[in-house]
């Protein structure tokens, strides 16, 4: 009876998503499919706030776009086409790099030697740093909970999580320490940035604060200053470039026509 209930949008870092290659389903052909991640989250839909690094039309005038989204831990690729009209419309108005929020379904393309997870956005919207930080913190908390379950070998009190956790351990032989490090990296990245903001705020001359306070809270006003925003974004982007190297999938090997057919 619950089939028509909306799927919850899970919070998973890009690093973990890019390692996910196991698809599972609960029952018949028409039952929803889930991607099992290494820490045992079952996702049909995800929500993330990250940086839209690139958008590229797969072939001229195809209106089928390939995008790359990054968070402090890694990168995921996605495709937006005419079957996602809402996302497509928004995407056309956004120029990367830009902080965006994304609600997406997941697609797992299984090749002969490797599989490739991509996201299929339902909604994309320009977002801001504050919202991105909230997402990183929330995703860190959720991931940490899952790591704790891993450490207990799936023997936690909430019975319903056990099977997924056990399956994830079997499928991926997940090393909890690896994901603990991913969470740490993500959280440190936003903490440093938030601290940098505090500092940059302290550097602003008192008169400027007084002026900006006319508009509202001083903190918010400083955050809204786009040039400050840009600077911090650049710092983040450097980190992202390093991260891209960690993304193991080599796109050249992938024949895009296959993807188009499977759509």
């Amino acid at each position, binding site marked *: 009876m619950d089939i028509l209930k909306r799927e*919850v949008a899970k919070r998973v870092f890009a690093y973990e998503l890019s390692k996910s290659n196991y698809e599972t389903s609960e029952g018949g052909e028409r039952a929803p499919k889930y991607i099992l991640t290494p820490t045992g989250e079952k996702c049909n839909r995800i929500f993330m706030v990250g940086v839209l690094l690139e958008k590229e039309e797969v072939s001229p005038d195809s209106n089928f776009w390939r995008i790359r989204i990054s968070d402090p831990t890694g990168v995921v690729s996605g495709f937006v086409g005419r079957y996602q009209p809402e996302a497509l419309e928004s995407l056309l108005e956004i120029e990367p790099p830009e902080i965006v929020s994304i609600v997406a379904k997941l697609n797992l393309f299984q090749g002969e030697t490797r599989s490739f997870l991509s996201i299929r956005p339902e909604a994309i919207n320009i977002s801001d740093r504050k919202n991105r930080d909230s997402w990183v913190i929330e995703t860190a908390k959720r991931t940490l909970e899952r790591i704790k379950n891993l450490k207990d070998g799936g023997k936690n009190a909430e019975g319903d999580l056990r099977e997924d956790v056990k399956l994830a351990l079997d499928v991926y032989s997940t090393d909890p320490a690896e994901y603990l490090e991913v969470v740490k990296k993500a959280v440190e990245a*936003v903490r440093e940035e938030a601290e940098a903001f505090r500092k940059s705020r302290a550097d602003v001359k008192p008169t400027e604060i007084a002026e900006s306070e006319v508009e509202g809270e001083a903190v918010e006003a400083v955050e809204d200053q786009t040039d400050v925003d840009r600077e911090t974004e650049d710092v983040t982007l450097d980190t992202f470039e390093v991260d891209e190297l960690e993304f193991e999938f080599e796109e050249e090997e992938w024949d895009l026509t296959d993807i188009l057919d499977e759509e």
Partner: protein
Amino acid sequence: MREDEKISTLTERVLSRFKGREIDPKEVSRRLKLLIYEFKVPEEEAVRTVTNYLRKEFDVTEVAESPIKTISELTKAGEWVSVKAKVMQLWDAESPNLSQVGLAGDSTGIIKFVIWAKSMKPEVREGRSYLFKNVVTDSFRGRMQINVNRNSDIIELDEDVNLPPREIELIGALVAIQQNSGFIQRCSLCNRVLKKGVCAVHGKVEGYDDLRIKGVVDDGANCYEVILNQENIKTLTGIGIEEARRIASEKLDREFVLAELKKRLLGYYFKIYGSKGSRYFLVKDIEFLSADIVGEAERILSEIDELRAKEEI
């Protein structure tokens, strides 16, 4: 076997309304079977027909009252019950067959109610408490609801039914905004949302402007349907009715208001106060989430350190 089970359940349902009278269950079952399996009459109609027959036969004017139950006790579909509840929110009755649809609550929970147009009941109002007498429970898309039909009564109560004990706080992201949101027009007669200037019941009518958002808030573990009213929207975006009118006339398109609201709200985190149902969250207050990032980050980092320390022991 399954047929027999169904008939015996339906028989019980019929008999439950004639408590204290000696009625042969076999006779009731026989009539139900005849109607349902021989004559292929829909179940509900068969039950109604047999009930009416018995009512005439025994000259019963007032059928036995259904037991008063709390909302949390309503777990089975097809039961006749009475519920004391407060109308918390009225939705748009999208079909002309519906008089009113909305959410009602008591101290144990929140439930959707449906008042059929055919039931000919006076309209209920938000914030008032009522006794929904002789209503039928139903399960729609896996969720319980109560249906008000011709045999039901809605009696306004003087007492104020208490809602779920306390308001809770929900932190989550607005992950979807439905199409029928934004700068809408409502029928001035029944408040239904007009589609292209046409009301489902009253046809082409003069409408009045309103702003609302129907959306989904998701916290990563659950998702809830929410409705933001004009006031909520104004607080969050600064766009009120006047601003909406200005945008619509400038762009010559009312849809631009929705596009603008989406840009400002979709994909953002919110802190919402209100009451929680199984599927719905009734918004009382809503604000953009303003988290203490450094504090939260430090808490998480120290938890990671603790976990690592434990592993080494």
